[in-house]
């Protein structure tokens, strides 16, 4: 008897063959962005002596730290085929809670950091609850919470920037020396977060469930995954990560600014998409997002170094986003 299964085995395409190594974090999805990042890096190294130096690269990482951290949470949400428009303003609310309670109410800054993270978590849980219980689309839910968090931030802060922060709140802005380079603790925390989330997504059951949920929610449910709880968990954890991004923002700027984060939602989505994560869910990962965030940072920094107006960075980012989504679409169509 001939075995139909062996017979009909299609040759894996380049795309799928590469996807076999998904768990290792490097696949076709991240290969493109990595190539773009390297090419940009080579270009700016040739064009400017100052680009490939420790201090400059440390600066690039610092500049993308906040959006990069927001993008970690955004990646988790997008992997479930969702979207989170509220992350920038939720982060801003977190920073105001952290700074205002410490400066104006005189609470212990460690406690206020915890409270700030808690407020962010509550917003994540609200997003998740509305999406799972009322089955509202994530786009609309997070558009609503974006405005709610924005308004609460302004009402609570009375439009006032909070300054004279205690040291604990700006700790992550401090640096240590590595050779000739000053590195902020915040950069280390960001990279550590990327590493942790990469591990969880690739090496643990709950991580694989996030992919399955984004891929085929019905199949995930039928295999016994509690998809509601998982989705609620993803939005909540993502929001805690936004709170950490807020802490990094406070450390970097030294103030609690109620105007912060208003366009960071789109910037974080940009980083995720540039990193090759599919907006349709279930494909991609945080290593890509790190690369995506760095691409934006490298272009901004490099163009500045060679004296090109920074608006060209925006132009290039726009083109790259469309390119990234087009590549994803073509890859998906070939699979179908």
């Amino acid at each position: 008897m001939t075995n139909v299964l062996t017979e009909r085995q299609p040759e894996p395409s380049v795309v799928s063959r590469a996807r076999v190594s998904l768990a290792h974090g490097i696949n076709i999805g991240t290969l493109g962005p990595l190539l773009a990042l390297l090419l940009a890096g080579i270009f700016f190294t040739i064009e400017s002596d100052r680009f490939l130096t420790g201090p400059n690269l440390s600066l690039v990482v610092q500049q993308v730290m906040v959006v990069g951290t927001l993008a970690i949470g955004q990646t988790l949400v997008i992997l479930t085929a969702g979207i989170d428009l509220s992350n920038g303003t939720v982060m801003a609310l977190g920073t105001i809670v952290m700074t205002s309670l410490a400066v104006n109410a005189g609470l212990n800054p460690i406690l206020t950091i915890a409270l700030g993270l808690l407020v962010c978590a509550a917003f994540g849980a609200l997003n998740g609850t509305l999406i799972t219980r009322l089955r509202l689309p994530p786009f609309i839910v997070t558009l609503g919470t974006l405005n709610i968090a924005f308004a609460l931030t302004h009402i609570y802060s009375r439009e006032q920037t909070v300054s004279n922060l205690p040291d604990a709140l700006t700790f992550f802005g401090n640096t240590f020396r590595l050779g000739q380079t000053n590195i902020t603790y915040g950069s280390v925390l960001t990279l550590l977060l990327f590493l942790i989330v990469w591990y969880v997504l690739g090496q643990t059951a709950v991580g694989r469930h996030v992919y399955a949920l984004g891929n085929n929610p019905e199949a995930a449910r039928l295999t016994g995954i509690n998809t509601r709880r998982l989705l609620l968990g993803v939005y909540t954890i993502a929001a805690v990560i936004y709170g950490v991004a807020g802490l990094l923002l406070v450390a970097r700027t030294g103030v609690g600014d109620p105007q912060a984060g208003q366009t960071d939602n789109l910037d974080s989505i940009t980083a995720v998409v540039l990193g090759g994560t599919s907006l349709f869910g279930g494909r991609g990962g945080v290593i890509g997002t790190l690369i995506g965030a760095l691409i934006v940072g490298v272009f901004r920094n490099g163009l500045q170094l060679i004296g090109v107006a920074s608006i060209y960075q925006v132009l290039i980012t726009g083109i790259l986003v469309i390119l990234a989504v087009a590549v994803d679409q073509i890859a998906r169509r070939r699979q179908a």
Partner: protein
Amino acid sequence: MNQQATTPVFEARGLVKRYGQVTALDGADFELYPGEILAVIGDNGAGKSTLIKCLSGAIIPDEGEILLDGQPVRFQSPMDARRQGIETVYQDLAVAPALDIAENLFLGRELRRPGLVGSAFGMLDKPRMLAEATAHMQDLKIGIRSMRQAVETLSGGQRQAVAVARAAAFARHVVIMDEPTAALGVKETHMVLDLIRRVRERGLPVILISHNMPNVFEVADRVHIQRLGRRVAVIAPHSFKMSDAVAIMTGAMAGEEVAA
């Protein structure tokens, strides 16, 4: 086959399920014996899928009882049924396309590394899952080379084979297949039918729900015919004509005359 001498693995007595004015199940009985493929057929609205949903835990019957190995069971959810060793394969290819075959086989039931890395850090035991997935697939003679292939690179039949292998790997009592070939072509349908036979050879009884009469007559040991919310007949396909089965299904022939 001397089935009547043994107790059924899986049995239902007098199941009733009403939806408002509509009675989907009207005292339906059901028996599945060890080592058999039992096909369930019936016209639309015969209560076929309601019956299967009761058996797989997807809905709770209003009346009647379900027995597993002679013991009464009450499934509150499909999870409940799965915990009792009843696995279901669905027609619409319930797999996660971007995940690989091994990941799909163990989805929701992942194995962790032994020791601290597994318990504290939840690290998956990928080598073991890969090895066991390979063993399960070979066991069913499914000739797919790499378990690390994403499921989306497979044909429809191969995807369904992954779903069947998953069910067979984890079922302890019964595998329910709900229209497993409905989305497949002719050749791939036959491949899945072979697979269903191999599941039976491994000692797992199979409940096969299908619209496709030739398929049912090719693979089933017995055929349960559902009509108007009840079982009207159980026939042996080798001693029956397909047209008679259809006649019973549609009510043109009385089922009572042919109870097997």
